[in-house]
């Protein structure tokens, strides 16, 4: 019972966030940014999956409804997670959790590796006044773990990253590097001087 309650709560919060994201996404489209012409890009895609989910769900006691919007999903060729922490055992457990979650959600894992740790050392005087020969040394060890994923869609990235980041343990930091891939926009396909020949102006 408690488990299902927890799941529902998580879905609810995810839903709220997705709601906000979808609203802001649609607003961006409405503002007329020239780079995101979704409807034109579609026909060029030779790919089979044409439905794209940008989800928002209204959750009551009824099962959540997933809304599908027309906006095409962003595609991410690489997503690289770097987790940093002071305790290696915590990072080990977190890596197990993250890799298992990725497998369950069907995400390709490129590689999982451990960059070498960094040690910051500090030497200070032991005493408040004089006694220069007696010092005390401190060190801070930062351990790293890197998980590289490949070929993810925008919705999957949002879901996975939110799940992972909500369960980030205390004392652990994370950096996520995402590489989104896009088509060449229409205004770079051919030079504009063919249509509007440039008049002779002194160049600045």
């Amino acid at each position, binding site marked *: 019972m*408690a*488990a299902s309650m*927890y*799941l529902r709560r*998580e*879905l609810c919060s*995810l839903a709220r966030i997705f709601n906000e994201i979808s609203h802001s996404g649609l607003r961006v489209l409405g503002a007329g*940014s020239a*780079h995101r012409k979704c409807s034109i890009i579609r026909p060029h*895609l*030779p*790919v*089979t*999956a044409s*439905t*794209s*989910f940008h*989800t928002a769900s209204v959750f009551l006691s009824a099962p*959540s409804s997933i809304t599908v919007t027309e906006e095409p*999903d962003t*595609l991410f*060729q690489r997503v690289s997670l770097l987790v940093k922490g002071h305790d290696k055992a*915590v990072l080990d*457990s977190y890596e197990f959790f993250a890799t298992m*979650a990725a497998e*369950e*959600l*069907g995400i390709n894992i490129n590689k999982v590796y451990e960059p070498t740790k960094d040690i910051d050392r500090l030497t200070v005087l032991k005493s408040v006044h004089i006694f220069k020969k007696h010092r005390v040394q401190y060190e801070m060890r930062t351990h790293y773990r890197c998980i590289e994923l490949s*070929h993810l*869609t925008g*919705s*999957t990235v949002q*879901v*996975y*990253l939110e*799940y992972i*980041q909500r*369960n*980030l*343990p205390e*004392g652990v*930091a*994370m*950096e*996520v*590097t*995402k*590489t*989104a*891939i*896009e*088509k*060449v*926009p229409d205004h*770079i*396909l*051919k*030079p504009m*001087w063919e249509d509007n020949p440039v008049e002779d102006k002194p*160049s600045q």
Partner: protein
Amino acid sequence: MASHTSWVFRSVGRINVAGIRLQGSMSRMTYSTEVSADSSNGNKDFQERGGRGPIIRRPRRESGEPRTEKMAVDQDWTAVYPAAASFNPNSVPLPVRMGYPVKRGVPPEKRGNLELIKIPNFLHLTPAAIKKHCEALKPFCTEWPSALDSDAKCDEHFPIKMESTDYVSAGPSVRNPSARIIHLRVKLSSLNLDEHARKKMLKLVGDRYNKKTDILTIRTDSCPLRRQNQDYAMYLLTVLYHESWKTEAWEAEKTVADMEEYSWEDSPSQKKILDVLVRMKVAGEGEGEEVREQLLGRKEVQEYKDSVTRLKNEGGSESAMLQYKEAVKKVLNL
């Protein structure tokens, strides 16, 4: 009489509860359970606490047996730890020990162990729990298009790559100003550029181009927000593209020093080799332009030209030097 019985009751209570440490605590009133009804005792307490009244101590309750005894072996663990919580020794039915052992001892047990409480635990993220969560999250994920299964195909259909970084950490602020930085990478071969446009683009862009991988990288961090930096990077790419197709009037003044590649025609090397060959009288007697052109058409001269061009463009390498040596030997008939 009442005082005596109350004292006896108190001491009996102490024996039950305090256990071995009873001898030490006789003098201390730490486990006294009764509020004594004695007037003399009450007065003493009253005077000691400066008129605030007697110390009211709630009766100490015995803790029952820990919940772990009642847990079934095949229970649903996700219900015991549904969310992140600190370690509770009475909820975890494992005989965990943690800590540095004293001499000839073992690590301390889990009851009253601060080390187990301090360290973050993953009891709420067992494989069963992860499976349940992922089952619930599956409907929100979408599939990667199956036609784009390799990196080469991604590059072919989607040549522009925007790289951004998110940062998650604990601190006074949730935001990280480095998150606004965008790297835009494009392969120049995927853009529609002719020879002149490509050379001009390389000159405009300078250091941002990597010759080995043919990737142009534009790094934008001048705007405060990530969306703004993305738009600015696309704007820069657009401007570079269109400007490189333009031919300005002053571009006609391009000198040999501005050239990106070495070309052998009309170079000092060509003049020198033709002079040498004419002096050596390779083509027989005669001076003038026809002789030079005839010499140019010769195979050895062409080979010499190839080797010199290769040396100048690619730099000195073993095979390039060997090729140059062979070409020189053939041209000068050594």
